[in-house]
Structure formats: C-alpha cells, structure tokens
C-alpha cells in the first residue's frame, strides 16, 4: 500500500487543470452540436471524438448533462430543422426539454428521432465524461467514472485520477482508485523506475485487470531477419524455431511477406498456370491427358518456367534453405528490457497463483454440478434402492416441480415469497402424483421390475405431452429472488453464483433430512426393515404396502423440489426431465443402489469426472460427456454393484 501513495505524491504536481474554459460570446450548446451534427446524429466510435473534443473544449456547463443524456439515449432530433432536445417518450407524446434553456413542452412524437449511440460510442462518451465525474459529489457518478477508466485506460487519465484520490471520501472507491492508478502507472508512468516499481507491486494480484496490464506491457510481435552472428536487434522476447515453434509453411509465408523469399507455387496456382497455357493439347511438351498426376504437372510447369512464361517453381529444398538462412523471433513492442523483465517476473508469479485459484474454481464448479446431480438423483435412489422399482417418470416429476414453481410465480409476484411457497407446494404436488402412481400402477407390478420400467415410461411420455398441451412448448421463466442474483466472488478467478451455492446448500439439507428420516424415525426403521426383508418385516406387523407408498411419495416429492431448484438455474420446459433421467440413473447405479451415501458418491464422482474431462478438452463439452458415459459403462463392468454395494432385496434383483 505504501508504494501507490508514493506515486500519488509524485504525480500530484503533474495533475494539471483538466481543461481551460474558452469564453466565446453567445456560445450555446445547440450551436456546437449543429456544427458537429453528423457525428452527433450518426456517431461512429472511431470518429466521434472530434465532436466530443469540441464539446469539452467549449467549457459550457451544460456539456456534462448533455453527454450523460446522450449516453442514456435521452437526446432526440427534430427532423425538420435538425435541432436537438432532451426528451422522454410517454405513449405517443414527447416531453421536450430545450438543451440550453431547459424550457419544457409536450409535443406529438411524429417527426422526432431518438438518438441511439451504440455501445462503442457510449464508451467513448464515458471516457470524455471521466474528467467531469471523477470528483463529483454524487458517489454513483464517481463510480461510473472509475469504471470507465478501468474499461478504457488511457495515459491522460493518470493525472486526473491521482488528483482525485486524496479527496475521495468513500473508502472502497478510494482503494479502487489507488489500484487503478497503480495499473495506469505500470503502463504509462514516465520514469522507468516508477513503472518497474508499479509492476512489481502487481505480482500478487490475480485479478484479470492486473494480468491485462502486464500482458499489454509484454505484447510481442513476430518478426524475421537474415541470420547474423550478433542476432536480431531490439528487445527480443524469444527466438522461434521453425518446425517446433512454428510450422515451416508459416515460417516460409512470413519470409515471403517480409520480402525475403519468393512466394511458393501452390497446387492451385500450378493448375491455373497449366490450364492457361495449353497449346495444341500439350503443356510444356506434356500431353494434357497425362496431367492427372502432380509429378507430370510439375514437369510441365518447369518447362513453362524455363521458357520464361511463368515464375520459376520453388522446390522444397529451396524453401528449406531460405528458412535456414533466416532467424524468426518475437520482439516486444516495449523497448526497455528492464521493464519487460520485471513484467515477466511479475506475471510468472501471478500465473502460479492463478493456476492454484483455477483448481479451486474447478473444484467449486464440480461440487456444484455434483450437488445438482445429487438432487436430481436422490429421489430416484430412494425408490429404486428401497423398492427396486425403476421410475422412468422421475424426470417428469422434476418437470412437474419446476412448473409448479412457475405457476406459483404467476400468482405470487414476490420472488422470495413465491420460492418459499413453491418448495413445499412442489413437494406436495409430486408427493401426491407419486402416491397416485404407486397405488394405481406400480403396486400391481412389484413382481415384474422390468415392466415397471416400461409402464412408468408410458406415464413419462403421457405426462410430458400433457405438460406441452397445458404450458405450451415455449420455455417458461422461473426467476430467482434478487438476493440470489450475482455471484460470490473471491477473486476474478474463483467465483460461483449464489444460486449454485443455494442448490448446494439445499442438497446438503436433503442429505441430512433423508439420513435423519431413514436412521432416526419410525418410518425410516420400517423402510429399512422392508428393504432388507419384506416378508419378515410384514410378519413383524409392518405394512409393506403403506411403506412402499410412503417411500415412493417421498422420492417423488424430493424430485419436485429438485425441479424447482433446477428450474431456477436452468430452464423450465416440458422436456427438461429427459435431460436428467439418464444422468440420474447413472448416478444411482454408479453409486450403488439403496444407499444415500452411494448416491452421494456417485453424484460426486460423475460431477468431478465431467469437470475434469472438460478441463482437458475445454472446446468440446459434448466429447466430455461421451467419455464420461464410456467411463461409466466400464466402471459398471468392474463394480457391477456400484461404489457402495448393499445387500438386501434390491441387491438380489
């Protein structure tokens, strides 16, 4: 922290007044705007600065307001005389405000055009506004200014920024200003020693901005020069070896571009030259019918070249020799080696930290994915594990839960309240559906497990189509409450959205709840008894019918709650169930049937595995999924009963 303050002191003297007001007679904002009307009406990012410079140079007090209004699309153009107004639309009417006098009037919208500067122009405007906003009494404006500097850092901002640090009352913003000043110093300070000092101070900062600053300093361009003993001149980043660091085609292309060698003849150019030089059915003495091999074409071409009709053919040996005679390297655009060395050291030290942080981030992502799989699968694990029943409609129970959440949000507009209502209601709805399904269908099929699979599949397609008929095919919004928006940000590398944390916490709660129900309640005791030996349990006075019904309802109810959670982070459609059903089965099977811990292990393994494979091959998520399924197939071959094997009814099939 000491060093930035040092810079502050150093640069305080440099901070000149931002602009010198020009006092012109009867200069109104409107006249300046009219002089630059092209750039005001149809601004382009690259050219808008001329208009902005004119505006800023005028020194008029209205300029700040105009720029802010312009940025927020609040400026309108009257098309017949080209005058500009502030305006706000209200139905078919506009409330106009004169730019200079502030006089208000209401007119119909026809004949007016709203100015909509694009994102690039808005950013340039924001930069122009920085000088007015940096020391504005309004905190929000100052924050905007600082954000704008961060987005488009320029050398000229360093002075004003440093000047504004001392007077900054807000502690957080002050720290941010100092940090930014540090970044700017590293890039733009005049004295190399200051820059190196600033660069060194960045070596512990893993933020993307810090890395951006360093990478910008280390920006290097590839170049080529004839090979000499002294080696190439300038601040060389590294030498590139043709063959390993760059392909020989690229190397040769670079030579051609630099004018050190003659362009190679591509097969297409070769063909072109031959086709345009056919004389009496022959090219360079070779009959056209024989030109169906590359060798003969080269022969014909060489003959043409000897006659001087086409440029000579460049052989592979000639290319090799040309590459050999030159040295390929990357040169820093920064001339001072001391600075680039310092930046390289700082960056290396950051990269180590970043790699560690990335591992942590990946672990968080994997945990989150695992918790989603766990939530989706745990209901299935209960029904499958305890009762040996495969419920193909499990995915549709997830969907029912999500739609329940959607319907409740239609009636309860407060998102927090609606989610709090939706969770128990979704549980109740799917619990009911599960019990109904057990009573009507599954009860009759306990001795035919494979047929429950098919019957529940029938229910699954019927439910899916029903949902489509009721809610339509469009995805429906299920919006999370505002306090779940955003992400928990540890650093620029490690962050995870609150909604995922909420799902993780929810998964933990359900794990605890289910363990509690199974291990500490009467129902759980009975469920475990029925799992282990239904006949014996029945003779002990337990009613297996009731237990099966309750178990099935419980499993389905949890699926409903999982549906609300999944809908919050992804989408609510009639087909969302199918996305999770196969994954859920695999989670249960890999984990081992009939055991909550098994499901947890299965979900963790699949979640971590998927993220791990994605990390190896980040550009192809589909491949990651393929490999994961393959892995699961192999895994089951070697542990057919899953990670946590269990004895009992389910284990015996």
């Amino acid at each position, binding site marked *: 922290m000491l060093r930035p303050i040092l810079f502050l002191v150093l640069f305080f003297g440099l901070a000149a007044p931002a602009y010198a007001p020009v006092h012109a007679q009867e200069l109104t904002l409107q006249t300046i705007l009219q002089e630059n009307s092209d750039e005001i009406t149809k601004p382009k990012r690259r050219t808008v600065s001329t208009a902005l410079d004119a505006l800023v140079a005028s020194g008029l007090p209205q300029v700040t307001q105009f720029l802010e209004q312009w940025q927020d699309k609040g400026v309108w153009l009257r098309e017949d005389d080209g005058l500009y107004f502030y305006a706000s639309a209200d139905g078919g009417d506009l409330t106009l405000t004169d730019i200079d006098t502030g006089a208000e009037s209401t007119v119909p919208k026809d004949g007016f055009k709203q100015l909509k500067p694009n994102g690039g122009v808005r950013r340039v405007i924001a930069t122009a506004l920085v000088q007015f906003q940096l020391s504005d009494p309004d905190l929000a404006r100052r924050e905007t200014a600082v954000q704008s500097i961060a987005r488009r850092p320029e050398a000229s901002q360093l002075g004003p920024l440093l000047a504004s640090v001392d007077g900054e009352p807000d502690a957080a913003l002050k720290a941010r200003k100092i940090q930014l000043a540090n970044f700017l110093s590293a890039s733009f300070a005049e004295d190399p020693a200051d820059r190196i000092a600033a660069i060194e101070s960045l070596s512990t900062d893993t933020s993307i901005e810090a890395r951006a600053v360093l990478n910008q300093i280390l920006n290097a361009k590839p170049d080529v020069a004839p090979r000499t003993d002294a080696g190439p001149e300038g601040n060389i980043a590294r030498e590139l070896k043709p063959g390993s660091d760059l392909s020989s085609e690229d190397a040769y292309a670079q030579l051609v571009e630099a004018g050190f060698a003659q362009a190679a003849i591509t097969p297409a150019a070769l063909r072109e030259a031959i086709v345009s030089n056919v004389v009496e059915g022959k090219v360079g003495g070779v009959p056209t019918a024989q030109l169906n091999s590359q060798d003969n074409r080269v022969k014909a071409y060489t003959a043409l070249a000897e006659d001087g009709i086409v440029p000579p053919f460049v052989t592979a040996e000639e290319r090799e020799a040309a590459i050999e005679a030159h040295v390929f390297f990357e040169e820093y655009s920064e001339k001072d080696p001391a600075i680039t060395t310092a930046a390289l050291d700082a960056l290396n030290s950051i990269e180590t930290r970043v790699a560690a942080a990335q591992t942590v981030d990946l672990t968080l992502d994997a945990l*989150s994915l695992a918790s989603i799989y766990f939530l989706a699968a745990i209901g299935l694990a209960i029904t499958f594990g305890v009762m040996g029943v495969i419920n193909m409609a499990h995915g549709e129970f997830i969907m029912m839960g999500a739609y329940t959440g959607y319907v409740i949000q239609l009636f309860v507009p407060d998102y927090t309240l609606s989610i709090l209502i939706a969770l128990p209601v979704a549980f109740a709805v799917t619990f009911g559906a599960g019990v109904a399904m057990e009573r009507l269908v599954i009860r009759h099929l306990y001795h035919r497990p494979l047929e429950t699979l098919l019957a529940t599949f029938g229910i699954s397609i019927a439910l899916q189509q029903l949902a489509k008929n009721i809610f339509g095919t*469009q995805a429906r919004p299920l919006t999370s409450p505002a306090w779940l928006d955003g992400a928990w940000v540890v650093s620029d590398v490690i962050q995870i959205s609150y909604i995922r944390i909420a799902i993780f916490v929810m998964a933990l709660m359900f794990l605890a709840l289910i363990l509690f129900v199974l291990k500490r309640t009467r129902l759980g005791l009975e469920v475990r008894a029925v799992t282990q030996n239904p006949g014996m349990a029945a003779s002990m006075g337990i009613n297996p019918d009731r237990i099966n019904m309750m178990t099935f309802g419980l499993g389905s109810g949890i699926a409903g709650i999982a549906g609300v959670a999944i809908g919050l982070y992804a989408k609510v459609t009639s087909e969302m169930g199918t996305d999770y059903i196969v994954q859920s089965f695999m989670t249960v099977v890999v984990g081992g049937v009939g055991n909550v811990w098994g499901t947890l292990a299965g979900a963790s393994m699949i979640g971590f595995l998927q993220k791990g494979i994605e990390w190896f091959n980040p550009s192809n*998520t*589909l491949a990651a999924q393929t490999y994961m399924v393959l892995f699961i197939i192999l895994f089951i071959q070697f542990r057919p009963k899953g990670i946590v094997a269990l004895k009992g009814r389910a284990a015996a099939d």
Partner: protein
Amino acid sequence: MAQTPKLVTLTTAALLASTSFAMAECADPIKVGVLHSLSGSMAISETTLKDAMLMLVESQNAAGGLLGCEIEAVVVDPASDWPLFAEKARELLTVSEVDVIFGNWTSVSRKSVLPVIEELNGLLFYPVQYEGEESSKNVFYTGAAPNQQAIPAVDYYLDELGVEKFALLGTDYVYPRTTNNILESYLIDKGIAPEDIFVNYTPFGHSDWATIVGDVVALGEDGKQVGVISTINGDANIGFYKELAAADVSADDIPVVAFSVGEEELSGLDTTNLVGHLAAWNYFMSADTPENAEFIAKWKAFIGDDARVTNDPMEAHYIGFNMWVNAVEAAGTTDVDAVRSAMYGQTFPNLTGGMAEMLPNHHLTKPVLIGEITADGQFDIISQTEPVPGDAWTDFLPESAVLVSDWKDLGCGMYNTETESCVQLTSNY
C-alpha cells in the same frame, strides 16, 4: 393394415365461408403446404411459423384469393423427426399435390427434404437464417445468409465496439460450425490472430454454463477487448444468459451478440440483467414502420393473445408468401417452373422499411439490424444497414469463394467461376 392412411393431412377449411362466392369458377383450391414441426423439440419455434402461415393464407383469401381461386393451407406435422420431414414432403407433393411448401427450421431438416423436392420438382420457401453453402433450384431462401447476419455483426464488433478477441460459442451442429468457420476465416483476414479466437461447442439443451462463462471472462487477461458471438440454439440460451447475468458480465465489458436469440427466446427469460447485450437479425419486433405496426396488430388479433411476439422468421415467411403470390399472379399459373422464373426480381416491402428483392441466387436483399436487449424482453435497434444481397456461397472460405449461384442466366446453383463449369445441378445434401 390394408386401409391406407391416404389423407394424412390436416386441411384447414375454416376459411371457406367468407370468400367462396368470389371463387365460384375455381374447381380446385390452390394448395399451400405448411411443413413445420408441431411436436417434438423444434415445436417451440416452428409452431409460431405454422400459425403465421395460416394468418397469411387467411388474409390473402380475404383479399380475394389467388388467380380467382381460394388458397388452402395443408398443414402436416413432421414432429422434429428429420427423416419424417422427407416423408411428409413427399406426401405433400404427391398425395396432397400442393403447389408450394413453406417450411423447415433446422438445416438438417432442410437437407432431408432437398432430395425429395428436387426429385419431384417442388417449391420450398425456407424462412430461417442459415449457414449458406447450398443452392437448390427448388428452394427460395428467405432467411439470412451468413453475409446478411454474421458478417455485418462482426463488422459492428470490430468497428464500433473495438473487439480484439473473440469467443465463438455455439451449439454443436451444422449452422454454428459453418458460421464459425466462415467467421474465423473472415477474422483472420481482418488481422485477428488465430490464438485470439476461442471456439467452444456445447450439446443441444446444455445447462451447465458456469465453467464456460468463467473461461470467457478469463479471456480478458491479456488486456484485449473480448466479445462473444453466440450461435447457441434454443433452450440452452436460457441457462447461458442466466449464468452470464449471475457472473455480472455487463455488455460494456464483454458484449454478447446472438444469432439465434429473438423475441420468442427472450420470452422465457427475465431480461433485466441482460440489458445491452446484442442480437443481429433482419427484423425486430420493435422496428418503427407502419407496415410492421399493421403486421403486429394483425398477428395479435389472429392469435388472440396480446402478449405474443413476432420475430425474424415470421417476417421471412411474410415476404416469401407475398412474393410467391405476386409471382403466381405474374405467371398466371402455379406451375413451379413458371413461378420460379417470375420470382426473380420480385420486390416486396420489408417490415423494417425498404424493399426486399428476390435475386437469381434465390436469396433476398435485406437490411441487417443490430439490437440491444431491453428490460421488457424486446430489442432496441441501434444499427441498421442498407439492404445487403444474400450470398449463397461465402466469399471468405477458399473452396466456396470461387462458386456462384445464378438460376436465372447461368441455370446453375453451384457454378465454379474459375473453371467456368457447373459443378452440379442438384444441391449438395
């Protein structure tokens, strides 16, 4: 089993009453086939187009039909099943004997239908933006070719937003793959280094976006302005935008321009956190023209729901259908070859202003619009180009730069200008 389900078509005859007197002399109605999925995964997008077609047919009948005949819409459901598209197309052309087909959304369904349409010399109007690299004598492409959507959007990124590093995110299928290939080649032409182009493909309906969004944010680490070009399709967008909003990626830091996200897709989302992100289309519902206002009013009345939105493929059907009607009137018959010749040079006003013209390569000239997402699920149009002529074969891939399509004078959809020969008369499927 011998009972053959011959009438496998849903005929819409509800429109008979209002117009029957004017068309007394007409023995058979003119039949328009509508080949859009009404069930399965694509129903989400295509059902709207079926309704749009029914609306267009209804209003044409109210205006006196066509050639003195009533128009009858023959609606079939290919159920998002690609082989079924070929089967239903054959049925439409041989059993129902339709004069023209309006249909398809996905490229693979179009590729499935192509051999059938070409074999039976049918006529198809295809309304969705697509990857190009195809030209069929029997298909009119009323959606955008890559040079009418992707290339102008990238130009906007380069010129206006100053983007220096690109993340091309797409769903793993042919449209994103080909579009991204074209864009990569275009960007390298424009001086963007290959290592500054990050490409990622995800499966249909992907929902786990945290890592990918994190990767995109991390692209900014070398201090270059990052921009995302999204060809993510359908439902997967919802998870993507939710994650984007959660990671607080503002459009000012990392803008996202989408080619497959329109008003329909946004209706499944809360857009307050997405304000400022972009989409490129040839039409936005917010276009401020009298034609558009009338179209929207008609649509809302037809569908009986004030909340329903209009979108780009609907406009494509609107232009395509009206051009076809005009071409039939000009030709005086619904014969496919006569109508095809009459189609060239047809003009019809766009809903966004200006005129669309049908070119000899079976594409339209259309303006390219770039819109920013607003909090109410609409787009604020911030850039509109002059009409751009659609190009079947892109100029930015070496293999297709030498190809042109001209069915009017050259009579060939895949003409190699280098060897001056027609590569093939059928399209490549």
